[in-house]
């Protein structure tokens, strides 16, 4: 199984290392040609405006959109989730518009408001997930076809899935817990 990790900017090396721990082949993607032959793609955390500009300049937006439309699974974390969302509240960032959610950037405030918490994610089992939220977005609204995977205790939505598209507002790649990446690989292999 070969998974591409968008490497325009951000924490792509952490995703690659996590995938390797799960014995998946992981390749950094900076140009459209590097998408060839991948079975799934991760869009990492980073700065969504920065990643969006870099994707646009080398035509990655169109390539990734048509890839997702052809049924190749995508997993977006934090900035990746913003870029996959159909709507971004009050913002000019260009997104791929793939998943039927509306997100709000920097929804918790500035860096001093960034936090860690133990998050219940029922599809991963009973053990809570160590979730790291860094200047994180939230999901304000989910429309048809979207399943909510996790909420904070105040019921804010922070993880969702629509078919083969998976998004989290937090950073599983910054922790040792491999379950979300394994869950994504199960989507890629058709097990989930």
């Amino acid at each position, binding site marked *: 199984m070969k998974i591409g990790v968008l490497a325009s900017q951000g924490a792509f090396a952490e995703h690659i290392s996590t995938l390797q721990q799960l014995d998946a082949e992981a390749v950094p993607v900076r140009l459209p040609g590097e998408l060839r032959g991948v079975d799934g793609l991760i869009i990492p955390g980073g700065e969504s405006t920065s990643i969006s500009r870099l994707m646009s300049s080398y035509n990655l937006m169109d390539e990734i959109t048509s890839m997702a439309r052809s049924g190749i699974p995508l997993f977006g974390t934090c900035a990746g989730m913003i870029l996959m969302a159909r709507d971004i509240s009050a913002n000019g960032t260009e997104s791929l518009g793939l998943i039927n959610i509306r997100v709000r950037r920097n929804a918790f405030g500035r860096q*001093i408001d960034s936090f860690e918490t133990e998050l219940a994610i029922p599809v991963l089992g009973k053990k809570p997930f160590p979730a*790291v939220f860094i200047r994180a977005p939230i999901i304000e609204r989910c429309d048809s076809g979207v399943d909510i995977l996790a909420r904070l205790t105040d019921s804010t939505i922070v993880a969702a899935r629509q078919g083969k598209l998976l998004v989290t507002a937090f950073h599983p790649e*910054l922790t040792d817990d491999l379950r979300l990446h394994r869950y994504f690989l199960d989507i890629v292999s058709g097990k989930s």
Partner: protein
Amino acid sequence: METGTWKVKTGLAQMFKGGVIMDVVTPEHAKIAEEAGACAVMALERVPADIRAAGGVARMADPTVIEAIMKAVTIPVMAKCRIGHFVEAQALEALGVDYVDESEVLTPADEKYHVWKHDFKVPFVCGCRELGEALRRLHEGAAMIRTKGEAGSGNIVEAVRHMRAVMEGIQLVVNASEAELKELATGYRVPLEQVKEIKKLGKLPVVNFAAGGVATPADAALMMQLGAEGVFVGSGIFKSSNPEVRAKAIVKATTHYRDPAIIAEVSKNLGDAMMGLDIKQIPSEELLAQRGW
């Protein structure tokens, strides 16, 4: 729910990786930087080249300037405090800046102690010229490191020297025996555990950017190939003749740092780079990099 943890401090720096952090002095600059794809901006009253030219004591920027820049953009905003000036750092934290740079570009406030950065919720980035200096800053709580280079010089030579020194230091530690590790820790003036961590990881435990002298896309890619995980560009953008175009070109070169065809392409028609300084022509007491220890 826990804020200000080591993981969220170092984690934000991980989100900067592969990116460019640009010095800006106005909201308009900040918007140009954001539009060009900067992963963060450094809010200042003057860029280092102007600080150097102005002389006198350089201090934390006016909070009005910092707040105006924070309002103008959605990307993270950093600001500088003087070395050891923990009250400037407290003020910056109160303003809500996303990262504090305890910087040699400003005039040091304390000749003995840097800020004890573990006391803060806001994360800090600090400069270094070699591994020992990086480790001392980490010990004090820096969550991100940058090599110092020579700010405001437009000359990459010092940035290269410092990055090579850090990388050589790491190799020295990786190849050291138990006995040598103790000796190295003593020399670096840090706890043995810190040196052991470097040996285990084969790299710094936090993100390491390059700074001080980046003026062209090729400079940025050079620092990336030497092991930087991203770059700070100070005077290099807004002291050039066409900041918009140059900013975009440096962002692209930092992402595609191993792709010579792209670096050649983005280096075309950028207009004049900032006027650089020969480091040898700078009187040694005016070298910013020697501030801090």
